[in-house]
């Protein structure tokens, strides 16, 4: 069976209580669901013997600025067995700006989640080492949010002491 049908079917059979929003654009399958299920679904996708999504290529977020659920966390995973790329999405609202960490599923998620936290301020619960990736620890803003100006905020990065 085609993986594009098999994956949603399997997910629906194993998680009957979760709403899945499946879309296919330019040959890329995207599955969107509620953020509270993220860890168990990722664990299932990785451990299922038919699917084996062993590689976590990338984790990032999108800031929609004006939408009700302001952020979408995007997971980009790859199955070595089928050479198939899958995108998972979960909405995160600004009022509760957190999502569970998937570092327990893929250790590669560690840096990627830290980067997302650094750039968007989304907290990853149960992350072993949630620090800023690029910006200094004292930095108060999240640079990739749409309300952060391109030129930066004057004075937000203090010069080093002489």
């Amino acid at each position: 069976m085609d993986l594009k049908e098999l994956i949603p079917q399997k997910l629906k059979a194993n998680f009957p209580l979760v709403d899945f929003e499946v879309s296919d654009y330019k040959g890329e399958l995207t599955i969107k669901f509620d953020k509270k299920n993220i860890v168990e679904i990722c664990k299932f996708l990785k451990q299922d013997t038919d699917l084996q999504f062993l590689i976590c290529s990338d984790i990032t977020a999108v800031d929609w600025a004006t939408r009700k659920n302001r952020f979408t966390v995007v997971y980009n995973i790859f199955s070595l067995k089928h050479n198939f790329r899958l995108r998972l999405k979960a909405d995160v609202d600004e009022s509760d700006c957190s999502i569970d960490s998937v570092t327990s599923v893929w250790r590669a998620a560690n840096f990627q989640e830290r980067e997302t936290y650094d750039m968007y301020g989304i907290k990853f619960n149960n992350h072993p080492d949630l620090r800023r990736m690029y910006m200094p620890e004292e930095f108060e803003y999240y640079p990739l949010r749409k309300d952060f100006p391109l030129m930066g905020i004057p004075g937000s990065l203090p010069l080093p002491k002489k």
Partner: protein
Amino acid sequence: MNQLDDEIHPKILEALLQSRNDYTIEDALENEMILNMGPQHPATHGVLRLLLRLDGERIIGCVPELGYLHRGYEKMAENMSYYEYIPHTDRLDYISPMANNVAWVLAVEKLAGIEAPKRAQYIRMMIAELARIASHLVAIGAFAMDVGALTVFLWTLREREKILDIWDILCGARFTNSYTRIGGVANDAQPEALAKAKWFIDQFEPYLAEVEQLLNTNRIFIERVDGVGAISKEDAIDLGFCGPNLRACGVEFDLRRNAPYLCYSELDFKIPTYTEGDCLARYFLRLDECRESAKIVMQVLDKIPQGPVNADIPKKVLPQKDEVYTKMEELIHDFMIVNFGINPPVGEIYHAIEGSKGELGFYLVSKGDGKPWKCKIRSPSFNNIQALPKLVIGQMISDVVAIIGSIDPIMGEADK
């Protein structure tokens, strides 16, 4: 320790002291030492900073600190058109800018639904493979130099210089090329450039054999890298290793084969793999990949078809300059594309190529206007550095230099 507390941010120190290590020594020294390596250190290949927790000379904890070269390229991408961003991709992996150009235009073409003509695709394959050779030559040379074999660096850089000469003919620039365009390439490959590429590949193999001979018979080199920084297949996949480093662990994962793009499915090439997963395997693998890439370039030069190098989609692909100056329609299109962008339809795509360091991907979200709403760079070096603590824990401090050299991180793309 107390003095260090002032200099290292308490959160980083906490991460270092809590870093899990499954390595214990029976007769541990009473004092542990924290050593700060980098960002200004010649062996860290740029501005990578490592905090090492040492027991004597043995490493029991490691925390990489990134961000010293963070220029905010993802933020900048959201504020400029797709064409404007091409020169910025040069500055990501500055050792192989051509491969980055190819990755970016392929992602944008997928988003906008453009297909480049066959000749342009062959030219792109040629430059991507030559970029891989150039990048691996630097990687091998710098790696050997880090562990004390200085001569090799001079030899490999001499070979790389010839590739830079090819790029000089192709596009007039040696380092920051910006040669590809959305829907094609900036200009057709000149016969001199193709002839020079053929000449380079013809004379390349004996030189590479010399480099190999110089290192493989160097007992100091072999003993410093053999068995050092080994990682298992499972750990490598789980920790996000990619590219040559992953293949050196025995995983046959290469996007040219696993998710073919351009015309790679028409070519005949092997994916070299090693099973040891140590520094020596990573060095051997890069040598093998140079040979495979040379084979690919040879095939490309044989098969390269004649024809146009830019897609005929006037609303999305920039016209040639001489036409802009002489024809009204082209002038209008040029004006519209330069000022308002190419406006790809609303949607999101991810496209990755097998760059010289591994999977180089771009995740683009378009809202239908001239600028990307979101651009995420999936850089291979960033993910390779993540496995560094796993590799160095348990090794001696002098091995750190060898391990960093062998995984070949480029901070320009790791820090974005």
